[in-house]
């Protein structure tokens, strides 16, 4: 199918053209066209998904390929849709030509990752994606971008070593053949023989892949790059960065299942009702939920709050993936979709806020619901979705994950997931009140509503949030096709798991009825009383400037004080210290070895001669 390479390459070509032609109007049109083509082609190819859609090319001795199956189609659609809306948003917020080039390059990379047919294409697309997103961050903050790049590169090279080991042992690189090789290996081990890969090698490959995909997905403890990288870049781009690129890590974990499931289960067995290797992923995912959520609550900067929230939500997906049943994996992919949708929407809203007001911290915001009603409506949808309130898509996916985890009898994971939901509500309340309600600072009196491109982009994502929430079956039926059996039964309005049911349409109807009743009551006679605005949060403490806690400033300072001990453990500082010591070691070694004295150099030669002599004799 010749459309596959066009889907992958067109954003890059468009970005390159947009960068070359620096004319203001033309580059936007080219850029948007570049992100629209993949979307259009993917939609066009949907009916023919039953047949295998493949494209292979021989490049310099490697057989590179692209493939479109149900699974890859779902992920590619996430990339295409959210990518398209992010590029639309960039029309308003992008300032330099190269931002178009790199944003579109990362879209190419991520589409390539999803549609890869063999390990080399996967790796190439992964690196393109990392490099492009790194360049987007480089201008704003060198430290954050280097941290991101180094961690990502360490992960990517870990993956390269794993790929090299697989290639050395099995001699093949395409996904079907590698999968077959591993399954055969698992069979051999089950029969008592020794396979191609020993237990240590399997553990090594698993660990390397875990490192690679964990860094990209933002899994604890490899998440340290995400808050800085997500906040220190063009916020419309972060919609794609956080919404789509992190899903590449998620897709990587699913790939781990596809390629190595049998082998890993045979080598490492089960833990409770989940495979051991999956339980590790799920447990780390649970830790991610907790760490991300608590840190999100403690932030004063909107961008950082949503960055940590992103990390926390990916934790949900990882828990779902780790549990390992068909239902939980479907729930995880469902949450990936809904996270992309509501997180993308959130970052576009943040981009609008920053674009219109220029402020980024909670203490500078307030009362914007009046001035930016459209944006507020979108924010309201996004907030409900993330909090998991029906009838929005966030509820459907969260509910599925809860059901899947409980069904498998995993109390610890279940506890972590519930905790995550609660803490999500905690930081969302902050965002809801501090930005949209309450007193408005005087310099925000003139803020206008969202510019048109951002408004369209937000509208698309908002509409999808609502549609998939009211009719969750649409997504569920697509996901069922991946597994080829009705894991989630029911029609398009209803999700039926056998032990639980959620009917979107019914709930919506009831909610609308309820809102109508409340509206009638309000208009008929509810009394409104104006109250002066006072500080509400003191609980008996004397009011001092440092301890003047309002929802806009230091709201969760008590929480920070309670968690002070745990907050001292910082993986960020650990990685920073490791790197610092490597640099210091490098400098000492260099000054010692290349010390400028010719005689020392001559002694090196003499030492090598002695070694050669010792070897010969």
């Amino acid at each position, binding site marked *: 199918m010749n459309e596959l390479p066009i889907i992958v390459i067109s954003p890059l070509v468009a970005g390159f053209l947009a960068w070359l032609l620096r004319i203001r109007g033309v580059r936007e049109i080219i850029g948007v066209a570049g992100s629209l083509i993949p979307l259009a082609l993917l939609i066009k190819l949907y009916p023919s998904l039953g047949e295998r859609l493949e494209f292979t090319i021989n490049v*310099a001795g490697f057989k590179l390929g692209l493939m479109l199956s149900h699974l890859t189609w779902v992920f590619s659609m996430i990339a295409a849709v959210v990518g398209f809306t992010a590029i639309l948003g960039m029309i308003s917020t992008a300032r330099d030509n190269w931002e178009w080039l790199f944003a579109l390059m990362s879209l190419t990379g991520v589409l390539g990752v999803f549609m890869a047919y063999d390990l080399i294409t996967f790796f190439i697309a992964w690196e393109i994606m990392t490099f492009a997103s790194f360049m987007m961050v480089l201008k704003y903050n*060198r430290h954050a971008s280097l941290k991101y790049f180094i961690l990502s590169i360490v992960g990517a*090279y870990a993956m390269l070593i794993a790929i090299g080991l697989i290639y050395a042992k099995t001699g093949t690189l395409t996904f079907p053949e590698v999968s077959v090789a591993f399954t055969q290996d698992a069979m051999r081990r089950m029969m008592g023989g020794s396979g191609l890969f020993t237990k240590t090698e399997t553990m090594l490959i698993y660990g390397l892949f875990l490192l690679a995909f964990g860094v990209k997905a933002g899994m604890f403890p490899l998440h340290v790059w995400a808050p800085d990288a997500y906040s220190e870049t063009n916020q419309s781009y972060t919609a794609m960065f956080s919404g789509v690129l992190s899903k590449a890590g998620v897709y990587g974990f699913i790939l781990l299942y596809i390629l190595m499931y049998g082998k890993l289960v045979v080598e490492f067995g089960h833990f409770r009702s989940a495979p051991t290797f999956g339980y590790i992923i799920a447990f780390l995912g649970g830790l991610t939920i907790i760490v991300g959520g608590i840190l999100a609550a403690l932030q004063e900067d909107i961008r950082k709050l949503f960055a940590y929230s992103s990390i926390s939500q990916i934790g949900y997906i990882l828990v779902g993936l780790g549990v390992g049943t068909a239902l939980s994996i479907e729930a995880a992919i469902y949450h990936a979709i809904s996270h992309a949708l509501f997180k993308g929407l959130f970052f576009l809203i943040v981009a609008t806020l920053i674009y219109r007001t220029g402020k980024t911290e909670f203490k500078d915001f307030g009362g914007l619901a009046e001035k930016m009603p459209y944006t507020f409506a979108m924010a309201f949808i996004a907030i409900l979705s993330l909090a998991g309130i029906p009838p929005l898509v966030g509820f459907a996916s969260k509910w599925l994950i809860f059901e899947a985890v409980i069904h498998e009898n995993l109390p610890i994971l279940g506890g972590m997931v519930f905790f995550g939901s609660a803490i999500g509500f905690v930081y969302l309340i902050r965002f809801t009140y501090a930005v949209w309600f309450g007193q408005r600072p005087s310099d925000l009196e003139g803020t206008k509503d969202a510019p048109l491109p951002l408004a369209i982009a937000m509208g698309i994502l908002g509409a999808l949030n609502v549609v998939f929430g009211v009719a969750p079956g649409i997504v569920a039926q697509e996901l069922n096709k991946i597994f080829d059996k009705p894991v989630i039964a029911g029609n398009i309005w209803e999700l039926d798991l056998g032990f639980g049911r959620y009917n979107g349409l019914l709930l919506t109807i009831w909610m609308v009825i309820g809102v109508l009743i409340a509206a009638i009551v309000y208009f008929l006679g509810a009394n409104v009383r104006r109250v002066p605005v006072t500080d509400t949060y003191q609980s008996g403490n004397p009011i001092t400037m440092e301890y003047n806690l309002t929802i806009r400033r230091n709201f969760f300072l008590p929480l920070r004080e309670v968690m002070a001990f745990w907050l001292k453990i910082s993986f960020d500082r650990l990685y920073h210290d490791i790197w610092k010591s490597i640099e210091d070691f490098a*400098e000492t*070694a260099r000054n010692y070895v290349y010390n400028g004295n010719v005689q020392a150099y001559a002694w090196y*030669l003499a030492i090598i001669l002695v070694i050669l002599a010792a070897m*010969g004799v």
Partner: protein
Amino acid sequence: MNQVASLLIALPLISAFFVPVLKQINKSLIKPYLVLITLIQTGIAGWVFKEVYTTGKPIIIYAGGWRPPIGINLYIGHFAALFVLIIAVVSFIMAIFSLKAVTTEPIDKYAMLFLLLMLGATGMIATGDIFNLFVFMEITAITAYALTAYNKTGEAAEASMKYIVLGGIGSSFFLVGVALLYGATGTLNMAQLAELANSINPIVAQVGLALIIFGLAVEAELFPLNAWAPDAYQAAPHPITAMFSAFVVKAGIYALARLLYLLQKASGWSSILRLLVIMATLTVVFAELSALRQKDVKRMIAYSSIGQVGLIALAFSLGTQAGVDAGVFHMVNHAIVKTLLFLAIGYVGIAMGGTTMENFEGLGKKMPLTALAITVAGAATVGVPLFNVFWSKLRIILATLQAGFFWAAVLVLFASVVEAVYYFRLIHRMWFMGGGIRIKEGVIAGILVILAAIIILIGVDPAPVWNIVVKAGSDIFNVANYVKNVPLVGVGS
């Protein structure tokens, strides 16, 4: 018609000694003369390249008409043809660059030494006789010593002295190795040495091979014998540094690889290989680590060049066909990238008056084309896909893992991470720190953009270059073919 290939050696030699005559006629003609000669050399090399690759047979030239092993023969196979072309093209670009970059007197000596350097490297690659290799190696080395000291500053003299001492020791031991091999086999012809390799007394073979490899390793900048290299690269004139990095060290690596594979039947071969793997890996690690906190950009890129050369040496010391192919590919890519980098840095050096970090701040605004070229080359060296080095690095890592050297692969990738850090710090400094007004960039910027375009072109479509490289790789690895191609006359010993 094949005899035209002997012009590759004769032309630079004759033209070098014609320079003093030219000086008497008109001093300002010397630099354009240099450009002309390198252009002609490029033409001949291109013709030779086309000949060898379309007919698939190597060009063999008998010096003086004597058949080998009585006489000395030149063997221009696939690998030699490819590299002679690269040498000629790089020399041509550097000759153009010298028009502006080299102003220290005496310029006529510079032109002579330049041509002799080119000659020496070409000879090292094209020869088929081991003592001839020694002679050309010494020509290259002595002209390199002189060119390093050309600027006549204290630092240049110091760098040159280090090079002389270490190079002198290296070549002396190389000669000892040659002596031992000659004593054991009675021949100096490479093809005949390959044939007789397994009949040599094992100890003599091992010691001889080890000493030869030792001598070449000094020229090829392997750890810890490369300590002269950062200083020499830093102190030499800018075009000369580019030539060092692009082909002088490559000629050394080529000779190392050629002799290593020719003598593979000698005993103790695998332990030499293992030692080379260790040395090469250490070269990469120490060079990349040393580049981290450099204050002078030229020295930083010099360390980067040494690191990449270590990578090439690693690929050659694996002992497999895949490794050799990957190594040759990396040689080609590295030559292009480092030519670009040193050309750009030299250009910044003469435009901004120095090559320290401060001179590079705000380069994106002052000299955007140059900064763009440096960005492309930097991203390429790190190994980002869509650039050429990605393919060769990928192949080297895969070949290393296939050969079973797990820790070498891990260390090399670690060095790659370190490389990313300092290149991206430089890129950040160029584009996002400081500012300035736009300076007019001339022909050099045009060359830089063309080289950058080639880098991206090979990165996106490596297939044509890869096909050439595979043929060149089998030229080195497939020794039986080499021996078959050389018509040895049977001689009584």
